[in-house]
């Protein structure tokens, strides 16, 4: 017997999305905008050319606080957090005992005398993440931010649009954080995002969300963008989507996330699954995440098996779709070491016929992060 699914929760900007004509769909327990009247392709291209406003209020926000918070969080994540400077933001993963990824998250060290870490985690996993943090790190306090919304503003015009409302954001470098006062409320801004473009993620009180979003949307360069284009943008940028390109069976090295494993930590360890991850770092993982370009015009979707020239199964696709920027299908997947060389030709079954895909480096569209 299956329990009935609980009714989707409402995000703070629900009414605004509906007024803007969004097609709302259930996603990770929330009703979220999939796209607005212009459609996914137009929204995607608008973000690459100007600025896209995304509501990401479904994601989990929390402050982990207490003496030794950075050192203690390091027992669950492979990032170097002790060395993380205040007002700096870092990408890392919560790992299980086998080194598999339980979730990927952003960690910001907040300023001030006390050790406080601001965490942003995935919507579908937030309840499990927060329970895990409380169970494993009982000496710290975890303040889940239940009344904060979150917006992302992404694209080459994002900085101009945001600095008109929050002067000073233009000073931030990639992965830097700053608190701003807006109408007496605390806005937390990081220069980061998940589209490959320059841009910002803004944590703000729910009560300010609609007013602030409307102010941003008054700018003709800013358009509301739904989850559909968020997915195609992150796929072009070669970024992992939790539950698709990352799951508890995948470690960060095979996922191509070695950059996020601290140098000190590669020697010292002290995080779950260290032996597997050290072995993968030293000897290369048995499989790895690669970019794939399917021949022809038909997208090859998640779940398709990848075959080598002899017809042997060597992996599968974890994200596949259509790239609006390149106007062609693109995909990512995991491929056995011997088959993961750039230029290698693989095949996938598409409705009974074999389509060739070539292994290519990621990302498909170059990142345009701003580093000061």
């Amino acid at each position: 017997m299956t329990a009935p699914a609980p009714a989707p929760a409402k995000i703070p900007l629900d009414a605004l999305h509906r007024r803007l004509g969004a097609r709302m769909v259930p996603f990770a327990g929330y009703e979220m905008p999939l796209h607005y009247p212009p459609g996914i392709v137009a929204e995607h291209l608008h973000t690459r050319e100007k600025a896209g406003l995304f509501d990401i209020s479904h994601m989990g926000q929390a402050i982990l606080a207490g003496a030794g918070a950075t050192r203690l969080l390091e027992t669950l994540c492979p990032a170097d957090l002790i060395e993380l400077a205040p007002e700096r933001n870092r990408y890392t993963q919560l790992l299980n005992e086998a080194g598999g990824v339980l979730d990927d998250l952003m960690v910001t060290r907040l300023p001030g005398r006390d050790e406080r870490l601001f965490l942003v985690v995935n919507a579908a996993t937030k309840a499990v993440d927060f329970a895990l943090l409380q169970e494993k790190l009982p000496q710290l306090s975890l303040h889940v931010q239940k009344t904060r919304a979150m917006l992302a503003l992404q694209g080459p015009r994002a900085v101009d649009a945001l600095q008109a409302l929050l002067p000073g954001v233009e000073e931030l470098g990639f992965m830097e954080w700053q608190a701003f006062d807006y109408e007496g409320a605390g806005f937390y801004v990081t220069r980061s995002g998940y589209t490959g473009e320059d841009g910002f993620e803004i944590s703000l009180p729910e009560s300010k969300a609609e007013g602030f979003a409307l102010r941003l949307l008054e700018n003709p360069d800013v358009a509301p963008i739904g989850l559909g284009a968020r997915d195609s943008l992150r796929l072009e940028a070669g970024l992992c989507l939790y539950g698709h390109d990352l799951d508890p069976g995948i470690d960060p090295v095979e996922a191509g996330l070695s950059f996020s494993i601290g140098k000190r930590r590669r020697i010292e360890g002290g995080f779950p699954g260290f032996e597997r991850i050290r072995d993968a770092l030293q000897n290369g993982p048995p499989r790895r995440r690669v970019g794939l370009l399917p021949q022809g015009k038909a997208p090859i979707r998640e779940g398709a098996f990848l075959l080598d020239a002899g017809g042997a199964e060597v992996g599968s696709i974890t994200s596949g779709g259509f790239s609006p920027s390149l106007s062609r299908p693109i995909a990512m997947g995991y491929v056995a070491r011997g088959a993961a060389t750039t230029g290698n030709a693989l095949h996938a079954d598409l409705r009974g016929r074999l389509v060739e895909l070539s292994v290519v480096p990621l990302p498909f569209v170059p990142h345009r992060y701003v580093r000061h």
Partner: protein
Amino acid sequence: MSDMRFTTDHEYIRIDGENGIIGVTNFAQEQLGDIVFVELPEVGKRIAKGEQLATVESVKAASEVFSPVSGEVVEANAALEENPATVNEDPLGAGWFVKLRLTNEGELSGLMDEAAYEAHLRSL
């Protein structure tokens, strides 16, 4: 548009003598979103009523299109290979999928006329 019939799955057939031109309705293209690829059957293929006729790929997902009637494919809309977005722009016109030679005209009576289809849309 009195020569058109519709299915509850939002396919249409426009009757043209012994042939029928099949595509998806405006409602369907709106639901599908940006269409990026249409896979059409080979000319000469025989298809039974309710069998899969085509696959439509939007940015997000693949969707199957079923044949409203039984027949033999006499033409597939080759222009969709180059411009699949035509289905979004003109679903009832240039965005047609397939021309079928009907093998059982009696099946048409089981389909909705335009008024019935409009009522069906309002009931959704």
